[in-house]
C-alpha cells in the first residue's frame, strides 16, 4: 500500500484547466457579434463585460471559436460598434 502511494502519488479525481472544456461553444451561437473598428473608441467595456473571456484586451478581437453569442458586448458598447448578425445555418 505505501509502495503504491510512492509510485502513483495520491490518487484523486482531478480535472485539468483547458480552453473549451465544453467543446467549441461558438456553435451555440444564434447571433454573431460583429465589431466595426471605425466606430470603436477602445473603452474596453466589451472586454470587461464578456462573461466568457472571449475578447482580447489589446486587439479587442472576438474569439469566435468560443463566443456564445450572448449579446452583452453589443448592448453595452457605448458607440454601437458591435452588431449582432444572424448566423447562417450550419
Amino acid at each position, binding site marked *: 500500500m505505501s509502495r503504491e502511494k510512492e509510485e502513483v502519488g495520491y490518487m484523486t479525481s482531478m480535472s485539468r484547466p483547458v*480552453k473549451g*472544456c*465544453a467543446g467549441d461553444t461558438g456553435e451555440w451561437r444564434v447571433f454573431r457579434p460583429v465589431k466595426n473598428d471605425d466606430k470603436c473608441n477602445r473603452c474596453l467595456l466589451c472586454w470587461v463585460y464578456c*462573461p*466568457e473571456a472571449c475578447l482580447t484586451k489589446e486587439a479587442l478581437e472576438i474569439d469566435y471559436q468560443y463566443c*456564445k453569442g*450572448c449579446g*452583452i458586448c*453589443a448592448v453595452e458598447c457605448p458607440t454601437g460598434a458591435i452588431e449582432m448578425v444572424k448566423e447562417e445555418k450550419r
Partner: protein
Amino acid sequence: MVSFKDLPEEELFLAGSTACQGCPSSLALRMAFKALGKDTILLVVASCTSVLQGSYPLSAINLPLMNVAFATGGASASGVSAAVKALVKRGELAEEPNVLVWAGDGGTYDIGIQSLSGAAERETDFIYVCYNNEMYSNTGTQRSGATPLGAWTTTTPGGKAQHRKDIAQIMIAHRIPYVATVSLAYPLDFYQKMLKAKEIRGTKYIEMLAPCPPGWKFPSAQMIAVSRMAVQSGMWLLYEHEDGETRFTAATKRILEGKVKKRPVKDYLEIQGRFRQILSSPEGQQAEDMLEKEVSESIRRLQGWVPEYI
C-alpha cells in the same frame, strides 16, 4: 483611481465553459480572479458553479479548486485556511494563498448559514463570496431565502409571498472586518472591494447580485442592464462595512447624495419575466408598494436608523 486599463489581462476563467450564455457567475469569477490572482485556492459549494466549471476531467478554472458539499462552505474554508497556515509555519509554503469560497444564495442564506456563521465567529481567514441569483437555479429555479417578494419560481408559482432576508446585515452582526455588496454593472467597484478583501485578515463576506437570464426570464444580452437597474432602483444597494461603519458606494452613493434620482422599483420588475405573474394580478400594486417600502427600510437601517418606539 483604478481604471479598466489596470485590470490584469490574464484570464484564469477560460473561454468555452459549460455556463449558459450571459451567466453572471462566470463573469463574476472572471473579475474576482483578476483581483485575487493566481495564488488563490477556490472552494466551490454545490451550485451552478459546480457545473459551469466544466465536467471531469476538464475544467474552465485555472486555479486549484475543490468542490465541497452544499452546507460546508464555512467549514471547508476553516480546514483549508488552517492547513495553509500550518504549511507556512512548517516552511512548506512560502506565502499564504487566498482562500476563496464561492457559493450560491441557497448555499449561503439557507443550508450554509450555520457553517458560515461558525467560521466567521472563529475569525477564520478567508473570503466568502455569495453570488446571489435569488433562487436555486442549478436544480431548476426553486425559491430560496433570497428570493424577493413577488418573484416567480417553480415553488412560488403565483409569486413569493414573503420578503427576502438581509444576510449581509447578519454577517455585519458577526463583527467581521469586512462586508461588502457588489454588482456586475459596476466592475471597478467590484474589483476594488475584492482587492481590499484580499489585504484584510479574518473573515470577509462579499455578496453579488447575479441576474440569471434563464431563471429570471430575460434575454442574456440584458444581463448587465438588469444588474444596473437593480442598483438604480434600490433593489440592490452597494456599500461596504468596515470598522463599525457603513459606506455607500458607486451608484447607490450617488442616489443617496441626491446626485441622481432613484428609479422606481417597477422599472426593475418590468424588465424581467419572473415578476410578470404578480404584476398582472390584482396584488400587483400591493407587491410593488411593499418592495418600495422594503428598499427604504433597508436604506434607513444601513444609515443607522432607530425606530421611534425604542
